[in-house]
């Protein structure tokens, strides 16, 4: 006796959260059944393995049919085939678009559309996430990037918590920020997402013009061009000295690593300002994080600055510029340094 056909169709589509998770994680039916057995469900419910198998198959089939709709969340809301309560719909979408940080960390800053099979294979082996799941996450990222769906996704109630993270992913992908270099490996996805949010808030077009879509993922080109003006801070010898003395005066006695700071001030300042000046070129934008780590984080770390000292320094460093008489780009400086300060503090750890 073999089962040829075995289905269950409810007027309200049944969604089993646990099975959904297994499906999203890319387990095959057999593996999923094994995992469910291990969870002790058989003992709890008194079911047999055959029942579990049939149940799992059924859910997988439903999810498979739903997947087409999940690729375009608004469709899920308006389709007639599956009657799913709104809260469940939201759950389906939220879970579908949830991602593993480990995976996203790998693809951060890469082109999202080009997730070649080999790349995914590598990521899968490296992170231990199943290939299927990698593929889904890659697709979700590109769905997100396609942008159209974003608005409707955001209209869902409640907005998926992963929403902000997607903003970061798309932002990084659009700007192709380099995150894969060895020296950046210590940074987590959370660090990058934090920076991305700051930059989206302050450095994009949407930041200045509220009429613009806040989902606009491009950096404000004009702003980047203007950043060249900041170069004067390091190019003008007098200005640089003045800046240094202002900072040193303010921080004397307050900094545990004062002498190191004093010795390094010019280097650090040059680094930070040069990073700004380089942002004009797309290619250099990509290296933003590499530069920040190389020019600021690493020197400080090698001198064993504690985080509190870094905070003091950065605060003073950006504030002192306001007292430089010869410098006319205060607003520009604030917009740049305000964001950068936040980013650097987040990036500064082991």
């Amino acid at each position, binding site marked *: *006796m*073999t*089962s*040829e*056909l*075995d*289905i*269950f*169709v*409810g*007027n*309200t*589509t*049944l969604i089993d959260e646990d099975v959904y998770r297994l499906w999203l994680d890319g387990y095959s039916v057999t593996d999923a059944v094994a995992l469910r057995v291990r969870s002790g469900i058989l003992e709890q*419910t*008194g*079911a*047999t393995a*055959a*029942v*579990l198998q*049939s*149940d799992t*198959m*059924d859910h997988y*089939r*439903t999810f*498979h*049919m739903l997947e087409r709709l999940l690729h375009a969340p*608004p*469709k899920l*809301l*308006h*389709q*007639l*085939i*599956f*009657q799913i*309560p*709104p*809260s469940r*719909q939201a759950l389906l979408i939220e879970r579908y678009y949830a991602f593993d940080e480990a995976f996203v960390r790998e693809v951060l800053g890469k082109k999202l559309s080009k997730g070649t099979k080999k790349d995914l294979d590598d990521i899968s082996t490296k992170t231990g996430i199943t290939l299927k799941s990698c593929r889904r996450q890659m697709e979700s990222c590109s769905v997100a990037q396609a942008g159209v769906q974003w*608005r*409707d996704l*955001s*209209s*869902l*109630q409640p907005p998926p918590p992963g929403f902000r993270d997607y903003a970061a992913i798309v932002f990084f992908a659009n700007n192709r920020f380099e995150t894969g270099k060895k020296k950046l490996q210590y940074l987590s996805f959370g660090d990058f997402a934090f920076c991305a949010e700051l930059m989206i808030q302050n450095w994009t077009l949407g930041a200045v013009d509220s009429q613009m879509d806040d989902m606009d993922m491009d950096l404000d080109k004009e702003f980047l061009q203007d950043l060249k003006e900041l170069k004067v801070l390091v190019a003008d010898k007098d200005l640089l000295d003045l800046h240094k003395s202002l900072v040193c005066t303010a921080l004397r006695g307050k900094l545990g690593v004062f002498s190191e700071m004093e010795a390094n001030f010019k280097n650090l300042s040059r680094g930070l300002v040069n990073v700004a000046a380089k942002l004009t070129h797309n290619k250099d934008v990509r290296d933003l994080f590499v530069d920040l780590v190389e020019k600021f984080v690493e020197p400080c770390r090698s001198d064993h600055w504690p985080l509190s000292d870094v905070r003091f320094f950065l605060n003073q460093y950006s504030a002192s510029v306001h007292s430089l008489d010869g410098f006319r780009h205060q607003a520009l400086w604030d917009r740049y340094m305000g964001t950068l300060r936040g980013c650097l503090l987040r990036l500064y750890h082991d």
Partner: protein
Amino acid sequence: MPGKLKVKIVAGRHLPVMDRASDLTDAFVEVKFGNTTFKTDVYLKSLNPQWNSEWFKFEVDDEDLQDEPLQITVLDHDTYSANDAIGKVYIDIDPLLYSEAATVISGWFPIYDTIHGIRGEINVVVKVDLFNDLNRFRQSSCGVKFFCTTSIPKCYRAVIIHGFVEELVVNEDPEYQWIDRIRTPRASNEARQRLISLMSGELQRKIGLKVLEMRGNAVVGYLQCFDLEGESGLVVRAIGTACTLDKLSSPAAFLPACNSPSKEMKESPLVHPPSHGCRSTHNSPIHTATGSRLTQNFSVSVPTLIYTGMGSGSAGKEGGPFKALLRQQTQSALEQREFPFFTLTAFPPGFLVHVGGVVSARSVKLLDRIHNPDEPETRDAWWAEIRQEIKSHAKALGCHAVVGYSESTSICEEVCILSASGTAAVLNPRFLQDGTVEGCLEQRLEENLPTRCGFCHIPYDELNMPFPAHLTYCYNCRKQKVPDVLFTTIDLPTDATVIGKGCLIQARLCRLKKKAQAEANATAISNLLPFMEYEVHTQLMNKLKLKGMNALFGLRIQITVGENMLMGLASATGVYLAALPTPGGIQIAGKTPNDGSYEQHISHMQKKINDTIAKNKELYEINPPEISEEIIGSPIPEPRQRSRLLRSQSESSDEVTELDLSHGKKDAFVLEIDDTDAMEDVHSLLTDVPPPSGFYSCNTEIMPGINNWTSEIQMFTSVRVIRLSSLNLTNQALNKNFNDLCENLLKSLYFKLRSMIPCCLCHVNFTVSLPEDELIQVTVTAVAITFDKNQALQTTKTPVEKSLQRASTDNEELLQFPLELCSDSLPSHPFPPAKAMTVEKASPVGDGNFRNRSAPPCANSTVGVVKMTPLSFIPGAKITKYLGIINMFFIRETTSLREEGGVSGFLHAFIAEVFAMVRAHVAALGGNAVVSYIMKQCVFMENPNKNQAQCLINVSGDAVVFVRESDLEVVSSQQPTTNCQSSCTEGEVTT
């Protein structure tokens, strides 16, 4: 020219990409009714076209309005080649033809293609203007209402229940016409869908005419079926019960209803638990007669089969002069009818007087080509024959009517088994004709039958019993005789006193049969039938005893014929009726007493059986009051029994206590284990596993013993097909396979629905078919309903407290009335006639924050929830309006089975699509639920080698509008908010 049909095509959405180059579609729509076709403009390059067409007007006869479906075809315009069809929508406009139902059909319909399934949706508005036709020979029957519900629909009152109506129409099956060889599968499927739609329209119209002739205005318990006879044609047949119904809608009608709860009962006898001096009940032993016949008027008559244990009959007097009077009157009322049959399974209080038992008849026929579709005499004659037989069986049981009547067929190649079954009953004539007898009789009824046990009392003459039965005095009133076991096809009467809870009981059986042709085959089948029937009953009886129960309700026995086997599946809900005697246990007797180990084995089995009975009693909370056990003697030997019979003639029915002696201590039931087969049977009895705790199941409308339903419901369909390993199949192996299949299926259901615990699977409806040699297909449709466990616990007290319990529920009920009153007697009509009330609150996604930035206009209309249930009611809600019958037939075919996920993927998607289409039609009618939903057919055929599969599904139900009881008060104050959905839809219409 009595009608004008107006159609407007508004928009489409989610259309499939038809032009690969542009990834877009140039869609237009053809609207066809009868022979007239209109077209919309082509809406270029869009997957969400906005046609916003003018009103297409069809001027048609009302006869056509009833027969024809409105056919909407969506096509992709192609300049160079033929236009490609995207899909179709068939809309049955019947609901618009009677005044109380829907006034407009408006909404999004899935566009359906028989090859691709659902491909996007289309928004359509349909209206009908009917002109008054004061005419003459009416061929139309507009205005007659149809209900699938097998009880008097809520919000109506039965003035007269006229009786049985039936009709059948035949035609050639387009699939088997010569032209089918040259046309595409799509064209063939569409021809079939259209034909069946036409035929059911015609059938419904003809039935309507009959109803008008009887001066009725509605058909209740309407059941329409298709027989796909293959080469020999296509039969569409329907049966129903003609009634004159009164709508309970005006406040005037409601005020008295609130004062006297019993009237309310009429309105919704099922939602409200029993009470209030209504006394419908049934009483019947099991009398199932099988007549199985051959073709050519050659009939094999099978002796009446009795399935009770050893009869130790006793006697008493006829029920007094009143009973006789009643019988006389009923008789005269019913004799005018050819077939005093009723398709209802639940009745207005007082309608059912006695129940005699199940009557059934089967007949084996050879199909031959239907030569003249206009004269379907052969098929008519076949059914007439069977009905006649049923009628005579009922007579034998001393009954003049058959209730809970249904008919079915099973076809394999050219052999067809026709089956009919029902419950013989004595009815109260009050409802059967205009109030001639009403006055005095009604009063006498009230006086004479105040008990809840009346229906259990035997209607037949015990001195002249049609079969040896085992009678005792009623355990409730102690005045009338009752059988020891009662089988019926109806629902448990609302006022019956039940001890404990009920449970689903199934008998399953397979019999191998040699492959044969034509007449030899028919003979073989008709020879097997009586044995199957006998065994099915034995199994039912055994399982009933094993559960410690004494009555079966909703019994449905399905015999399915296949190439090389016959399958029997009987489902029913077992209960313990307080009026019937406590069932005896099961005793096992070995046939070879010499063998010591054998003896031991037997006693071991016996112990197991006793344990199971004890366990079941505990599980189903069956604790009948321990009365007069002392005076009940041990089984009465045959000789004594006879003498008793003689003596009884002089007995008066008052001598209750003495007569109780006659009731043997019911150990009567002996199972003889004389060979391994019997052993297997006993084993299989014990393998049935009870549902996990928190679960109950039944195949009747509601679960006896549970009355505190909460509002969560989940209707589902589950299908399983197994392939038997063809190697030396034996009956035992087959039985085991079949048993496992059903048990596993149930287990799966329990597992799937575990999140709803505590819940009850109601109306569990199993259908077996044998699509191919080694395939068995089982289809189950049921609804899971949650209930309140805390209250349930209260009801599990001892039966003595039961009556108190009953009283308290009565009180609760009374409390509900004011609530209903306030909604129903609102000034003017609480709900504007249009579809203001339609949807039970737009889902939260709909309102909420929609930041429609660039969304298409349709985007803000969320899909309203449409509930589906096989029951006639929705727990925790009140049905305010019936919108018309839903009767839909779909064919789906694929030539890429593997790509669609194999057979499971294919059928899963198809059933989901069918649900979606039903929901869409209901929503378009302005409804928010389908009640009495039934999947009448699910014919699945596959050819994996060719990567092909085909499936036909036929579903029906009643579209309704319901309001949550908890919302009732709110509605009056918040009326504007309820209009949310309708304003949305109207918004769509105008944009």
